């Protein structure tokens, strides 16, 4: 596991770097609608060539809004491994 990190604009949260990606987009199913981009507060997704892709999991709070919104079933969502990902004392 790497060093914990945080962001000034998201106080009160620490992230432990994830050993491997836990969200991915199945390009063959993605319709490029952009809904995952619209519902993500952590700026995880971006659209490129009319397909969504994971830009960065650095700010992901594992809320799964992307999973709920994707009508095409293109989002594969699992959990970050071995206790990595975000943590907060203030939930």
């Amino acid at each position, binding site marked *: 596991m790497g060093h914990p990190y945080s962001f000034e*604009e*998201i*106080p*009160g*949260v620490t992230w*432990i770097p994830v050993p491997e990606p836990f969200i991915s987009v199945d390009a063959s199913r993605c319709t490029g609608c952009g*809904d995952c981009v*619209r*519902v*993500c*507060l952590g700026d995880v997704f971006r659209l490129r060539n009319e397909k969504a892709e994971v830009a960065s999991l650095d700010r992901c*709070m*594992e*809320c*799964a*809004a992307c*999973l*709920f*919104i994707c009508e095409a079933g293109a989002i594969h*969502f*699992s*959990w*970050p*491994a*071995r*206790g990595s*990902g*975000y*943590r*907060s*004392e*203030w*939930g």
Partner: protein
Amino acid sequence: MMAGAEYDVIVVGAGFGGPVAARECAQAGLSTLLLERASTPGQKVISSCTIPFYGFLFGPEWIRNGEPPIERPISGIRNIFIRDGKTYRVDNSFRVPAPLGPRIAIGYTVYCRPFCTWLAERAVEAGAELRTSTAAVDVIKEGGAVRGVITDGGEELRCRILIDAEGVQNLVATRAGIRKPYRPEVIELCLLYDFEMGKEDIDRVCGYNLEYFWAMPEEGMIAPLGRGSAVYIFPYRESIHMTIGQFLKADDGEVLNVKLLDRYYEKFFQTDRWRDLYEPRVKLRARIWDTCPIYAGLYPDQRNMPTFGEGILLLGDAAGLEAAAIADGVPTAWFSAQIAAQTAIESLRAGDTSASFLSRYDRRLREHPLITALISDPHRRDLAQAAKSGDEAEMRRRVNRGWGIRLMGHLAPPVMRAVYREIRRDARVVKSWLDMFNRYWRLYA
């Protein structure tokens, strides 16, 4: 795959529900494993959390008789109406009158990390094994029956009954083929702010009240009514929690932009009440977000998804048991955890983990005096209609019915049924309720 240990019961998730089920199974002598994906229970649980009194009164005795880490008793709801950025009406109608309140509380605010940690410790105390930093990423199925989970480390952990307390994301139940993910129309994304604030300032500004702020959509201060929540302020011991939520998708099919949440906050921070009373006294400490199911119980297709299967029981948010009434799912998580544990114990004693045996779980959930009333209360939905009407008097009437004194009209009957049921079992319970209010007050003060 690595073959791991075998247990009578595996509970997935050490949030609010999982540890309750784990403790009650372990106490009955079942070998019980409690799995938690965070390194510390509650570190990945986000909620603006006021646990209503009925969770404590009718939930697990050991919580009621224990010393859980509560933040502050709450004895009233203050509905505050905003127009043109100014407070024009404060309705204090829903509160426990002095001298009973705040010692007799309608709920207690808590932070999830210490509270879930406390619950998980009680499960371990009873003999459950707690494994943190371990996520269940898939299920083991044999002949259609769930027989365990596969962890993020690739380990196979087998069990006779799996209790799924995973929460709203429902990965386990989806992989097990029991449920479909929640529809985005019943999922709210909540953006929370946590501010430090001195106790004396909180006493002066909030007292022991939750503050709910209401405004017509044109204020741009909250998600248009019916598309999200009000602005809520929850007073804690030396801090306040604020939350604004918005549905992922409106009933008319529009996908809502979450960046609006920040804009609602900006607008709210310009209101007179925030500027004059809060702003000079607070210091921002955290900005966090999560999804939660709201109104799922109002949609038949969501409410009627299974809560059990061959070898598996689902509880709390994972079973669709959110509470639309007071925006808090903890009591239903506790009630369903107790019923799940009781059903698992019976099933293992009978040597029958079939879906037909476990169907009694679902029947008991439906027979419970409070669960269905809490998940299918339509009054919060009313606000969508109020917004469409554009009539402030109508909005105030509906707020009063959902969060004001008229809340008693639809909350009192199921609560009274639960009171009656408990007293009939053992009249001494009344003393334990009064003891609880007094002990919690001492813990706080």
